[in-house]
């Protein structure tokens, strides 16, 4: 904004020294005059004192105060004394308040321009700290589990049932939708290729095996990571912000036992059940495609699955779901308890929980698949 500074202030050389004449309206909504020219002028003359003439000053607010604070600070740095008693009383009082607590120079931080090596170092330290925290968390979780086995774990069973309800029945709708769609997609993709060989009936094998061994557990886990794992991180993160976690600690109650354990048990219980349900829904999705596109009856389809997909594949899927449940609850609760003390930290914890869960799910799936291969199942 261009401001005609000459209208607002003028430097006058009087007998007693320099006089700054302020006139007109000094409301910051009208703009604050540029001070640099005035500072240059002051530095060139280097007077001992600067007085103010405010007889023509009309309305003023923070516009004038902002201008004067900067001017006085600059004058102080250059050993020019400002005669503040020549300013209106209200201005003097606000200036006194403004200078009551001196600026803490050390507190102003340079947040930019960190060297690359320092950044790498900081990231490494952060990763190391994260890893230590995770190990400590897993250790505490294991200790809590031992307490649970000995019947000494302190948590409310009402919390456990509530968490089971949130993680189980409440998730059925989304699991149904996604699983049926996954079954349909698998059947479609298989049908296109298998039709070339006149082997459409093997769509049942593809869907049955795919859902039972991989996709049922995997899709349930991905849904639960986004739905329940994120919720755990947000819940515990918000409790961290509100100092509720600290309140547990100061009462000698372990947040791991009281908060994490019900959530972990809830997912260990519900994930395998949801996986069985997802397997069944996926197979129904495949049946719909087989019946409508491939002229394979429901009877033929299910008979094919019964004959060629033995229970061991379902069991492997269910075991995977249980492992994924442990990972999702661990990642969600770990990130939640690790959360900072602000709203943005809760957002970060939630995102981080979902990303961690998904990475862990994929890694665990690969490990279990290799193990199954080695064991010949």
């Amino acid at each position, binding site marked *: 904004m261009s401001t005609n500074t000459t209208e607002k202030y003028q430097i006058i050389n009087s007998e007693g020294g320099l006089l700054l004449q302020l006139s007109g309206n000094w409301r910051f909504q009208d703009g604050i005059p540029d001070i640099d020219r005035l500072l240059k002028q002051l530095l060139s003359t280097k007077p001992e004192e600067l007085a103010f003439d405010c007889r023509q000053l009309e309305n003023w607010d923070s516009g004038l105060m902002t201008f004067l604070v900067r001017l006085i600070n600059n004058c102080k740095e250059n050993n020019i004394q400002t005669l503040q008693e020549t300013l209106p009383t*209200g201005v003097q*009082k606000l200036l006194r*308040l403004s200078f009551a607590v001196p*600026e803490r120079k050390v507190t*102003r931080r340079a947040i930019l321009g960190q060297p690359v090596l320092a950044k790498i170092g900081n990231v490494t330290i952060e990763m190391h700290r994260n890893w230590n925290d995770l190990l400590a968390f897993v250790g505490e979780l294991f200790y809590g589990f031992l307490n649970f086995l000995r019947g000494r774990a302190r948590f409310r069973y009402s919390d456990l049932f509530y968490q089971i309800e949130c993680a189980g029945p409440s998730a059925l709708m989304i699991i149904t939708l996604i699983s049926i769609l996954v079954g349909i997609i698998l059947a479609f993709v298989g049908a296109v290729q298998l039709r070339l060989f006149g082997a459409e009936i093997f769509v049942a094998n593809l869907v049955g095996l795919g859902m039972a061994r991989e996709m049922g557990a995997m899709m349930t886990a991905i849904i639960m990571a986004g739905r329940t794992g994120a919720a755990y991180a947000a819940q515990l993160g918000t409790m961290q912000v509100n100092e509720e976690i600290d309140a547990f600690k100061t009462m000698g109650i372990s947040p791991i036992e009281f908060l994490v354990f019900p959530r972990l048990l809830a997912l260990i219980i519900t994930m395998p059940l949801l996986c069985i349900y997802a397997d069944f829904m996926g197979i129904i999705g495949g049946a719909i495609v087989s019946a409508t596109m491939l002229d394979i009856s429901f009877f033929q389809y299910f008979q094919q699955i019964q004959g060629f997909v033995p229970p061991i594949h379902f069991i492997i899927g269910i075991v995977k779901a249980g492992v994924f449940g442990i990972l999702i609850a661990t990642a969600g609760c770990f990130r939640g308890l690790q959360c*900072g003390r602000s709203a943005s930290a809760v957002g970060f914890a939630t995102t981080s929980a979902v990303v961690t869960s998904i990475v862990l799910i994929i890694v665990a799936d690969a490990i279990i698949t290799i193990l199954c291969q080695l064991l010949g199942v």
Partner: protein
Amino acid sequence: MADSPHLDIRNLTMAYGEIVIQENINFTVNHGEVFIIMGSSGCGKSTLLRHLVGLIEPSFGDIFVNGINLWKAALEERNQIISRNGVLYQGGALWSSMTLAENIALPLTEYSELNQKQIQEVISYKLSLVGLAGFEDYYPSEISGGMRKRAGLARAMALDPDILFFDEPSAGLDPVSSRLLDDLILELRDSLGATVVIVSHELASIFTVGDNSIFLDPDEKTIIASGSPKELLKKSSDPRVLNFLTRKT
């Protein structure tokens, strides 16, 4: 405009659904007055403040700001009136993803035509007024609760509002900061003619800065005393008011 009171509350009823918090509330706040809303915990002081700043629509009654009925005004006019308010919330309510400087800069960027350099100068001045000079680059999570509150005040004052609302301003502040805040409230009133409405329990502050006040009672669900806090202490015969003002049980 200047002839009418700054705030005029007529027959206000505040309720959450069927539960009435306070009813038949009538009072006026004049231009340049420091007005205190007092009462015991849970009587609805903060709820009244939320009504006055336009966050909650009254169940019944009217709120006039400079003679304009806040909830009967067109949406644009209401938003304009609300944007001229400065509000300090109990916990500061700073936006956690922004630094203190960015918190104060946002209203200045939205509602003024200052350039970036001028905005930075205003920010430095506002932070210095609340004793936080040099903390521009800090995030709210990196400073103490009392500092957050003071930074919230700097943000509330960013646009030199016509009227400032304070919800428990002294709570959580050390005595020196609390005293500086009282001085600042009086200076804002004296120098800039700002009207100040304060919800407070802090007796020292109430007696230092309050020109006028009302006392809300949770049992009678209405105002049971009004007037200058010092006058109420001298003249009120209501034991509830006297007990509050003299810290007796």
